[in-house]
């Protein structure tokens, strides 16, 4: 349980900005007027960034991590290929991050989001809401069940399509770890064509966001599985005179 874990203290190691996308990436057009132009102000983290809100397992409903059923009518289920997404949340030192709140959202199997501004013509699935959440266990592990999201067109270039993906919002143990990212699926031919994937600066970075088909966790006659590990900022350990923190 989140409430019983030991406190983590100590500053965060600097974020490797060369590994993350730049703010200004003109092929992704919306970034042009929404990217700060001045240099970021750097300073070591303080308590304001090293602490973060706590989320208990008590807030999670039984179906929150089951997107096939959490919006479906009784006895119904969402339409589409059923998948399990699972993995671990670790920090840069390889330590598990227990008690991390993950929120995820996605288009339905046809590629359509449940949003009034959505313009894609694919059908809405009345039994699919498109969002879920869970909290990592003591070993940093998580899993949820959903349907494979469809690729979809979006207004950027004349004919840009997003590869199938799931959005992730992650809380760690410090507000400096706050992260939103996306998970892609192994083998999707749209990955190298997408301007949003294209803001990533290396094939390694793209690979880190691409989940592999995991036949070990696939459930016969039910759901395929994909494994997706998430890495958050690492924290230095602070030595206290009255207590060897983490040592």
């Amino acid at each position, binding site marked *: 349980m989140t409430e019983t874990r030991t406190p983590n203290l100590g500053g965060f190691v600097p974020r490797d900005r060369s590994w993350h996308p730049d703010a200004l990436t003109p092929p992704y057009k919306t970034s042009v007027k929404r990217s700060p132009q001045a240099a970021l*102000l750097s300073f070591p983290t303080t308590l304001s960034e090293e602490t973060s809100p706590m989320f208990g397992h008590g807030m999670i409903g039984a179906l929150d991590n089951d997107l096939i059923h959490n919006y479906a009518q009784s006895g119904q289920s969402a339409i589409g290929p059923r998948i399990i997404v699972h993995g671990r949340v670790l920090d840069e030192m390889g330590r598990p991050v227990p008690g991390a709140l993950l929120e995820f959202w996605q288009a339905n199997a046809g590629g359509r989001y449940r949003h009034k501004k959505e313009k894609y013509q694919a059908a809405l699935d009345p039994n699919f809401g498109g969002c879920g959440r869970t909290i990592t266990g003591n070993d940093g592990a998580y899993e949820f069940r959903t349907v494979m999201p469809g690729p979809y067109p979006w207004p950027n270039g004349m004919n840009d399509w997003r590869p199938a993906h799931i959005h992730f919002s992650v809380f760690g143990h410090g507000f400096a770890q706050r992260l939103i990212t996306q998970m892609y699926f192994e083998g999707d031919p749209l990955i190298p064509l997408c301007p949003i994937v294209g803001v990533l600066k290396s094939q390694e970075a793209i690979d880190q966001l691409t989940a592999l088909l995991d036949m070990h966790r696939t459930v016969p006659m039910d759901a395929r599985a994909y494994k997706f590990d998430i890495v958050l900022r690492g924290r230095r350990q602070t030595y206290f005179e009255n207590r060897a923190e983490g040592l």
Partner: protein
Amino acid sequence: MVQRLDYLKESPSQTAGPYVHIGCTPNFTGIDIYGGDLGTKMKTGPVKGQEIVIKGTVFDGTGTPLRDAMIEIWQPDAAGLFPSLNETRGKADPNFTGWGRSPGDMETGEFSFDTVKPGAVPMPDGRMQAPHVTAWIVARGINIGLHTRIYFEDEAEANSADPLLSGIEHQNRVPTLLARKEADGVYRFDIHLQGPNETIFFDI
């Protein structure tokens, strides 16, 4: 061969996209799935200190309000204590969550937080910082979430002694970090992503 530093790389950031609200504030988009959105209430009972409202709008480089942004804030209680497991200096106000999440209004883009004026928090070296709120902004077109801080213009003395604010080279940009007092207990903090009034964003 020498040993390798086998640290992992942080998962690279990607934009929150236009539909961040489906995942983070589903009720706001009409998806009634959890019985309420997280972060809408920062007070769970009577709180200590001065109750305030912080509101504002995020503007792009053309001065257009963002209507698809999500803003989160994180702050200590009126005594400067965080309601966090990582807080070891004392027990924070049990009726204050410290964390707020607000989507911009779908028409005007305005965000709003019903909170308390934060107390002061020390730097790691013990020097006191001026009262502030940590803010984080994500939206379509923002490739990595933007961190900033909300200070208060009516804390002039604390602000002028603040180690971070006083160390900023371009002092003419400091006002971009100050919430303006609009009425008693109401502060406005507009965020400009670009332009002459570009808010100072942090690499933390």
